[in-house]
């Protein structure tokens, strides 16, 4: 009987898979493009922070290098990896939730609500470092709630924490819950030791992921990147304007994308659910800490918020279960009201729209490209395709793309020449270290074709006014004039320059 029930729950993973299916049709996002760029260089023998520069910790690039080694520079394969990863995460969650004796109905709800919440994030906010953190996050949560006091437990918690730190330093904030529970339960020597061991293991994992850099030729670049990062992190400065913009974004992301219905269910779980209080309490605490980490990072995007999805959706599932169990469905205004609220203010309509994207991807590619092309935003799939098509037609050897905000173009090129900076702002910024300038110039002196964006002015990244085009002609005007000629201007923003023979 129990085995049947177990089969039944794992069977729900098929529904999860169907709900996650649209993610396979998503195009490359700007961040994913950067990860693929870095991963591809490493897979080809390149060195991080020497042949490729970005501000994330190394682990994400090694993961992308691994996928690149398996499948090559294939967009669908990368999405397929994410699809499989999320299904694995859900499978693991079922296993762990059953061990925590969470009601089957709640687990089943989770298996439906989580993939819905993930899929409606669309292409830009899926397959981020936050998405890859789901597995270590749910493991860490399980071990925290399970709270067995064994060496094995400490080891696993340390490993999970190390994975989180290696993906994004700020995710390590969940460690504070361990400290809180030590303080809340009375300070005991062995508990403190366990916490220290856990931290040491976590740092060891982080050290392992950093070691190719620390002991390789990328060390100077790593130091330069950290010095750049410390300056970069100062912007935008704390103040009323930043707080206003953060609150606005939080309200918008929470209400529109997480959705009002899901927040309602989460609140319902917190205030009404009578069982599994420990699970609910720890979920709420972890969410709060991760929420704090989002605020600390200052630059709020929707994908930053997804870091607490594994636990938020668990609360949503508890609330949903409570609602279904306790609400009297009748033919009256209240029932009608809730039905409308749950349709209009939930991810349901977005999900329907996401399936439409899949349909267009298969049957109407033009409409699909149009959907992902909105000049004035970061959605520029059509631009990248057109630019890549032109470069492929006219010769793509030693192509250097100078833009900020997404270099998807390079993944549609016939040749696989890769340059060092996925965002031109890194080396064009006034705070760029000398090593960045030197590294960029190596690329510049080697390139045969340049595409320079004149509409990518993003002060938050450049930390100066002007587009890549403006700054390049401010800094390298003489070199460009004497060594390159203008071939054409595509889409009124990409200046194509060819090396003079």
């Amino acid at each position, binding site marked *: 009987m129990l085995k049947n029930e177990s089969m039944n729950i794992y069977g729900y993973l098929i529904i999860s898979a169907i709900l996650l299916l649209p993610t396979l049709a998503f195009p490359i996002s700007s961040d994913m493009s950067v990860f693929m760029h870095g991963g591809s260089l490493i897979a080809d023998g390149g060195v991080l922070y020497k042949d490729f520069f970005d501000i994330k910790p190394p682990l994400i690039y090694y993961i992308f290098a691994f996928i690149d080694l398996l499948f090559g520079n294939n967009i669908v394969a990368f999405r397929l990896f994410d699809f499989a990863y999320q299904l694995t995460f859900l499978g693991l969650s079922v296993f762990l939730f059953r061990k925590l004796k969470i009601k089957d109905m709640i687990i089943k709800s989770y298996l439906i609500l989580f993939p819905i919440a993930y899929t409606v994030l669309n292409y830009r906010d899926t397959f981020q470092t936050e998405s890859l953190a789901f597995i270590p996050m749910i493991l860490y949560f399980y071990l925290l709630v399970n709270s067995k006091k064994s060496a094995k437990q400490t080891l696993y918690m340390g490993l999970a924490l190390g994975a989180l730190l290696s993906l994004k330093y700020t995710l390590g904030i969940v460690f504070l819950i361990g400290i809180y529970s030590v303080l809340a339960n009375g300070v005991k020597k062995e508990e403190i030791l366990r916490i220290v061991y856990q931290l040491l293991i976590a740092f060891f994992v982080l050290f392992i992921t950093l070691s190719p850099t620390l002991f390789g030729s990328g060390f100077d670049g790593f130091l330069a990147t950290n010095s750049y990062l410390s300056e970069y992190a100062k912007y935008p400065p704390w103040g009323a304007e930043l707080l206003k913009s953060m609150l606005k974004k*939080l*309200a918008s992301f*929470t*209400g529109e994308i997480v959705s*009002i219905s899901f927040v309602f269910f989460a609140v319902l779980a917190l205030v009404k659910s009578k069982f599994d209080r420990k699970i609910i309490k720890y979920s*709420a605490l972890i969410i*709060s800490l991760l929420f704090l980490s989002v605020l600390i990072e200052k630059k709020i995007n929707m994908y930053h918020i997804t870091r607490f999805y594994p636990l938020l959706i668990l609360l949503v599932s508890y609330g949903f279960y409570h609602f279904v169990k306790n609400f009297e469905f009748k033919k009256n*205004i209240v029932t009608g009201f*809730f039905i409308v609220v749950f349709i*209009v203010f939930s991810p349901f309509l977005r999900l329907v729209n996401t399936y439409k994207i899949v349909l267009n991807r298969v049957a109407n590619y033009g409409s699909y490209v149009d959907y992902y092309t909105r000049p004035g935003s970061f959605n520029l799939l059509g631009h990248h395709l057109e630019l890549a098509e032109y470069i492929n037609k006219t010769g793509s050897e030693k192509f250097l793309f100078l833009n900020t905000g997404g270099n998807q173009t390079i993944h549609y090129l016939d040749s696989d020449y890769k340059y060092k900076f996925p965002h031109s702002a890194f080396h064009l910024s006034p705070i760029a270290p000398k090593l960045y300038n030197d590294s960029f110039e190596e690329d510049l002196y080697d390139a045969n074709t340049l595409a320079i964006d004149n509409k990518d002015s993003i002060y938050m990244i450049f930390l100066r006014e002007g587009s890549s085009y403006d700054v390049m002609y401010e800094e390298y005007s003489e070199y460009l004039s004497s060594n390159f000629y203008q071939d054409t201007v595509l889409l009124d923003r990409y200046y194509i320059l060819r090396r003079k023979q």
Partner: protein
Amino acid sequence: MIQNKQHSNWLFLALGMVILSITILFPVGSDLSIFIQGGMILHNGGELYVDFFDVKPPFVYYLFELLYGMFDKNIIGYRVFDFVYQSIFLASSVYIFRKLDIKSSVTNLFLVVTPLLYTTMGYANIMQVESMFFLPFIWYFYLSFKSDNNYKSAIAKGILLALIFNLKYTLGVVLIADIYFVVSNNRLNKRTVINLLIQVSAFIFLTFLFFLPVILNGNTEGMLKFMDYMSVYSNYPTWSFGHVLYLIESLTIHFSDNLSLFLFIALLLAVFKKDESKNSRLISYGLLCFILLIITIILERKGLAYHYQRLIPLYSLLASFGVAYLLIKIKELKVVYIAIASVFILIYSPLPRYINLLKVPYYYFSDGDENYYNSFIDGKYGAMVYKHKKVAEYLNHNNRSDKTLLMSANGNEMITFLDTDYKYSMAMSSFYLNDISPIELQEIVFDELEETETLIILNNDYSPITFFKNISSLGAVKENKKFQEYINYYFELDTTIDNTFVIYNRRTN
């Protein structure tokens, strides 16, 4: 003990008034400037639908005629009026909620939540017809819920309904809630039908009185023609899948941001657990009215911020039930959890917006005009009030006469800063400059143009809702051959202020 609780209501009313008091320092908003324009013209002897044209029911402009007689162009006077009006609404609510046996803590929360929501709507979105709806509505809601089956109550409801309807026609939807409530409670009998007829008769009679000045002045035909033309506006934007998505997005944005996510969640919680409350029936009835008012927003199609204001009385009341429940739950928690909950509540409540508004009194009393006016940003248009003020100062400084015509589709704030009274008839340039405007309206403005000495045209007032395409007043003038040729021939460019206001003078030779 009970007396203590009642005392606390008055204390919270005082707190609510303190919260509201910040609105006294708000400058003129775009819609308020149009109401004042109407009031000014009527006060100076003009007639509705001859000397002034706008979309709202006549009652609104008669009210502003009265207010203009009292306050002239002194915006603080209007803002004080609004403050007093909203305070009376809050005091009425205290009285009504006691009569309805609502818990004192819920009433106290209402007295804080309502002014917070109202104030944080911002200077351009308050003192709208939707704001004036609050007071008659709360009484109508009370009488309707109380269901006194007598003729006095029916007459009172009829009068209130007429006030509501004549502020905005669609708000008359509350009558449906009243009828539904009677029917759903199985109280439909001869007496209730008669009382309903009395209510409707009183409503029709008073509405007739509000239209009487127009009829007596012989302007009925003009009114009907203008109304007929205005009905085109209500058909725009046209229904489509895209527009439905826009409305859903608008609803989501307003419930998660402007009206605060925390309060909407509290509202949902109150409805979910209403059966645990002694005010269960009241919550159901409140929900019914709330839904009907949301439907009116959807039917009006525009989904702008001030349209949502009509929801505030019931939104606040229902949310207050939920917040009261949440506070009880939070009190049971450990300090750490109380702190965490408080942070989330703070972030997703209207409080940060209100704190941001505290700069208004600071700038007003300490910093002079520039910072004060620059703190009122009108979305993508920037600090429009300040720009209007600068243009008015330029005109005043150059002793321009009252023959100054403003062509703007987004508000006429400038006229409240001018030394002379504004006398031209159209509330919005799009009335006569869009592609479907009746020739009669164009001729009225053309006649006005012929006597104008100074002409001001906005070049950034893009208003697809009223122009039916993305064009500014200046762009629309350039497309209108008759206007364009006349202006080219008889006017010369004087200056452009703030890259927005293009000022022309009549040529002297």
